[in-house]
């Protein structure tokens, strides 16, 4: 390739400058941290330049010689058709902006100086203010020339701005106001990569050292879009090797990138404040795309509800910020570079590796296929703060997808929170590290840091703690069954048995209960608790049942733990939630008595799921449905198969002995068909003198109890349990007992009650109490059949 003589001369003349320049501007892979100070140094130099120029009288500003306005290549590359109309305005714009100062006083002084300029229309963004009139006068675009600007009111912006002048620093202070971009491309592209031909030689020319800063000194400042955006053309630089020599390969991405802001090579975006919301990109970077060799520092503000539409689903992503480096190498020479527009281009080596540094701010509710919030592809990522949460990836990395590709580095320190993001594959929901990536702690990690992570290879070194301080609790594995642990200087994953609900057994004894079996693994410690809850609806009022058990209230079953959960007869359709809470998280499961019963009914008949067991399950469901109707509980949630069970047991009413009751004290009896079945006998207070007498109960077959009265209006109630001290078992339906209280004595059983109800309501087929008692009898008989079958 021929060398242009002027370029050679300029190159030689500026060799010294270049020697310093490359060391400070161009990224060194081995010292990636040097990139950040460089970007800040450049911005600082630009700010100093602005202040120096601001002190000069306006008329001395050589705006007419501004290459950005006179360079035909720059204008030809402008997609905006209104750009030529701006030419006549730009000399004046430059003149004014170079004296503008958002700090106020200097702008006022220089405004006086402007009065010396021949009378013309007030240029846009005078005194560093942005109003709707300024936008309209600037071709419907945001400011594109160096300066500090403050949004003075809400504005609508129909066209895309392009900051092309090398060395420009544009600072936008939202000052609490709103920018609504109404176009379909993006709000800003910063940087300018163009193809030039100088004396027959083709070159790639980079206008670099451009920065855009978004800040908000007031709060609630917003940048949003009124319709779906696409982003703009990414003029990326890659490498083309010819005869072993690398030359810049300049292309334009077919699908647009950077829905709000696109950052080209050798330029930097600073996000310091304000909210960016509602942008889309066709390809990468719903809010921001950093092209090969561009940079972004996010220290504040928020990116929310931005989305990559991922035209190429296997390649595209990052709802919020994407950052790239070409696959062919991290730098390329034989490239022309301008660090300021009034300088001649210099042949240099430029870096093609982008960088993203997040030190604060928040990214939430963004989505993309590869990277819900952030995707870094072969570039450098450093996170020292900020929160990334509630973003969603279609494929990988709900929070961050990092692909190293032999070039990128990933560093963390400080107090970042990357948690609560989403992906259909749970292990990829937050930070997903592809390749054999090891993240390095570049500084101490606060105990407030929280990083949920996963990676394709669960055996690798996920984090290099690098001699820094940290808390292992900050590292949370998204791999089910794996936990983060310390191994020397690294954080790795180990497989652990995680707590879970193993299963359920239905118990029918003196109670109706569910036996819940649990796997606790290494969390069988006093820190572990178990909570169960269910709710029921009575007459439209919802009531909640909830209980928390300590570890010591669980029964050790050898290879598992268990507890019993009593379920009321009318609550068999209530959804029961069991939650195990342990030091590293929670595991929960839901079920219901009806769900367990149906599982038994529908299971293939075998030694565990016998015909007798299925019959009990069916009759239990019907019994429960009758209890729902009797108590008016969960009537909007009746079991689907609530019909009298097959081979329904029936009985007749009569043949029970009335009590000996000389004082007519006996009023009546009810049976409470709850989780425990108890017999409640009522006697008139007026029949007893003095205090209520105790009742003596003696069971057929042995055992007795003494029962004290419970006053109930005009009656004393005696609540009679089964002989075990719990409720009557269903199999004890016919178990008789003798009772004696005061002058009253008699015999009774659950079956007696069933017969009395039948006598009273026979013929009233819709009577809910009659249905309940008939259902209970069938249930009891089926329980006896089952008990006999397993005896």
């Amino acid at each position, binding site marked *: 390739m021929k060398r242009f003589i002027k370029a050679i001369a300029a190159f030689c003349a500026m060799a010294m400058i270049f020697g310093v320049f490359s060391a400070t501007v161009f990224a060194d892979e081995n010292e990636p941290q040097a990139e950040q100070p460089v970007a800040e140094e450049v911005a600082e130099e630009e700010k100093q330049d602005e202040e120096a120029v601001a002190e000069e009288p306006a008329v001395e500003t050589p705006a007419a010689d501004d290459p950005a306005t006179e360079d035909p290549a720059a204008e030809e590359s402008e997609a905006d058709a209104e750009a030529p109309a701006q030419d006549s305005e730009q000399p004046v714009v430059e003149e004014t902006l170079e004296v503008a100062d958002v700090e106020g006083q200097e702008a006022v002084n220089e405004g006086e100086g402007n009065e010396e300029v021949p009378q013309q229309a007030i240029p846009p963004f005078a005194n560093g203010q942005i109003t709707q009139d300024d936008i309209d006068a600037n071709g419907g675009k945001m400011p594109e020339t160096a300066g500090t600007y403050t949004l003075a009111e809400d504005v609508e912006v129909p066209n895309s701005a392009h900051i092309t002048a090398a060395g420009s620093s544009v600072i936008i202070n939202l000052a609490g106001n709103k920018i609504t971009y109404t176009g379909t491309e993006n709000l800003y592209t910063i940087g300018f990569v163009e193809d030039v031909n100088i004396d027959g030689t083709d070159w790639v020319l980079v206008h670099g050292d451009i920065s855009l800063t978004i800040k908000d000194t007031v709060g609630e400042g917003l940048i949003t879009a009124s319709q779906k955006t696409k982003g703009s053309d990414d003029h990326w630089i890659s490498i083309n090797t010819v005869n072993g020599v690398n030359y810049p390969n300049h292309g334009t991405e077919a699908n647009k990138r950077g829905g709000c802001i696109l950052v080209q090579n050798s330029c930097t975006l600073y996000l310091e404040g304000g909210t960016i919301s509602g942008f889309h990109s066709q390809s990468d970077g719903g809010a921001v795309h950093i092209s090969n060799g561009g940079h972004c520092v996010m220290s504040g503000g928020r990116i929310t509800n931005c989305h990559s539409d991922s035209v190429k689903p296997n390649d595209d992503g990052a709802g919020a910020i994407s950052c790239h480096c070409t696959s062919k190498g991290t730098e390329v020479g034989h490239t022309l570079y301008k660090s300021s527009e009034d300088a001649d281009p210099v042949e240099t080596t430029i870096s093609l590796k982008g960088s993203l540094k997040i030190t604060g701010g928040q990214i939430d509710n963004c989505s993309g296929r590869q990277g819900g919030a952030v995707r870094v592809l072969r570039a450098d990522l450093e996170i020292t703060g900020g929160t990334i949460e509630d973003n969603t990836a279609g494929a990988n990395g709900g929070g961050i997808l990092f692909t190293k590709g032999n070039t990128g580095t990933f560093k963390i320190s400080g107090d970042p929170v990357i948690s609560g993001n989403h992906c259909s594959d749970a292990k990829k929901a937050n930070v997903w590290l592809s390749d054999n990536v090891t993240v390095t702690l570049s500084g101490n990690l606060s105990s407030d840091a929280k990083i949920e992570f996963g990676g394709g290879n669960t055996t690798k070194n996920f984090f290099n703690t690098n001699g820094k301080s940290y808390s292992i609790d900050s590292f949370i594995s998204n791999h089910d069954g794996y936990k983060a642990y310390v191994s020397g200087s690294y954080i790795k994953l180990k497989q652990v048995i995680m707590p879970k609900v193993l*299963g359920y*057994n239905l118990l029918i004894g*003196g109670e109706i209960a569910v036996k819940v079996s649990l796997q606790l693994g290494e969390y069988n410690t006093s820190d572990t608790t178990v909570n169960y809850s269910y709710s029921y609806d009575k007459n439209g009022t919802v009531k909640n049942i909830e209980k928390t058990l300590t570890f010591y209230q669980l029964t050790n079953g050898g290879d598992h733990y268990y507890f019993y959960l009593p379920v009321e007869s009318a609550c068999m359709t209530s959804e029961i939630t069991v939650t195990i809470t342990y030091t590293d998280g929670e595991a929960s499961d839901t079920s219901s008595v009806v769900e367990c019963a149906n599982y038994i009914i529908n299971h293939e008949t075998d030694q565990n799921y016998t015909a007798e067991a299925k019959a*009990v399950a069916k009759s239990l469901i019907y019994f429960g449905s009758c209890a729902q109707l009797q108590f008016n509980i969960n009537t909007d949630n009746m079991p689907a198969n609530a019909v009298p069970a097959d081979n329904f047991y029936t009985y007749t009413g009569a043949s029970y002995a009335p009590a000996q009751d000389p004082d007519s004290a006996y009023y009546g009896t009810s049976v409470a068909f709850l989780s425990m079945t108890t017999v*409640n006998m009522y006697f008139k207070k007026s029949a007893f003198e003095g205090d209520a007498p105790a009742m003596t109960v003696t069971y057929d077959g042995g055992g007795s109890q003494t029962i004290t009265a419970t006053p109930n209006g005009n009656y004393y109630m005696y609540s009679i349990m089964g002989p075990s001290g719990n409720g009557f*078992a269903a199999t004890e339906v016919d178990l008789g007992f003798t009772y004696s209280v005061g002058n009253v004595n008699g015999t009774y059983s659950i079956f007696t009650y069933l017969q009395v109800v039948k006598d009273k309501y026979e013929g009233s087929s819709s009577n809910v109490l009659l249905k309940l008692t008939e259902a209970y009898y069938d249930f009891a008989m089926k329980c006896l059949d089952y008990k006999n079958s397993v005896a």
Partner: protein
Amino acid sequence: MEKTKYEECKIEVIVFDGQDVIVTSPGDCDFETDPLSGVV
């Protein structure tokens, strides 16, 4: 092979011998029914 959550699900009919308390706590439900409901 990992068991499904219902692989252990079966009916157990418990016959009390007066020693074991089957549940860790009595039923929690408070249906607030009319106390004389169902009295015959």
